[in-house]
């Protein structure tokens, strides 16, 4: 099984079905296309998107619905093709997509903010993902996430 060094969790082995493939990378990181999504129960709901290509690259993330319970993802046909999703008007069955907001820490964890303007969307069954800009929304680049400091100080 392949192994990778992680930023916070030491060395990990993983199976190929665990790899999340970003065909276009993330914005500003277009050349990093393979990631693992890691969770650690003690830091829940914080998870980590760890690059396989670059062990020092790891994005703290959390489910977009944990940031804003009302969060509604918008996908255009181009996004759907990129994620190998059927283009349809009705919602996808629950569990089809994993929608994560990248968490940005300020100087201390209690200043944490989550990016709902550019969420990471994973098509779980296909293992494909993309950062999908919500152009037609009012979602914030820095949506405050109070309480994350409690997660990290227990």
């Amino acid at each position, binding site marked *: 099984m392949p*192994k990778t060094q*992680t930023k*916070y*969790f*030491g*060395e*990990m*082995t*993983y*199976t190929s*079905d*665990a*790899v999340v493939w970003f065909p276009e990378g*993330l*914005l*500003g*990181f277009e050349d990093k296309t393979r990631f*693992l*999504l*890691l*969770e*650690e*129960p*003690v*830091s*829940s*709901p914080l*998870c*980590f998107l760890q690059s396989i290509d670059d062990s020092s*690259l*790891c*994005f*703290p993330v959390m*489910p977009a*619905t944990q940031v804003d319970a009302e969060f509604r993802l918008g996908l255009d046909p181009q996004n759907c093709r990129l994620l190998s999703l059927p283009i349809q008007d009705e919602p996808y069955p*629950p*569990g089809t*997509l*994993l929608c994560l907001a*990248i*968490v*940005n*820490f*300020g*100087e*201390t*964890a209690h200043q944490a903010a989550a*990016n709902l*303007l*550019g969420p990471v969307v994973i098509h*779980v069954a296909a293992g494909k993902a993309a*950062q999908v*800009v919500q*152009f037609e929304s009012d979602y914030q*680049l*820095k949506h405050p996430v109070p309480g994350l400091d*409690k*997660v*990290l*100080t227990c």
Partner: protein
Amino acid sequence: VLITLRRRGQSIRIDNDIEIIVLEIQRNKVRIGIKAPQSMRINCSEIVLIQEQNAIASCPPAPVEATLREHFKGSPGASSLVLGKQFSMTSARSADAVGAQPATAQSDLGKSRDADRIG
């Protein structure tokens, strides 16, 4: 800041090689075309802002990074892959770290974790 009134089909020139054309006006949207040399990077502001936020998010400040490292150092459960049916941590202390983990759905990864939250 230059403020000017333009109608559909009209344009603005910047120097000799850039033209910004108003293609279509809807109720609260405007479709804009930009003619510029290939070498110029043209992006919606949101894209640039998100690029910057991604760069910042990938490098938390030193105190937060130290907290994260410290936080996970002794965690007995070790971390697990959200996707992928099998995982193992070579540096894991506990055998519990090796096992099956079903793919987690969007709704699950939030709700089911609430119970685990400490604090």
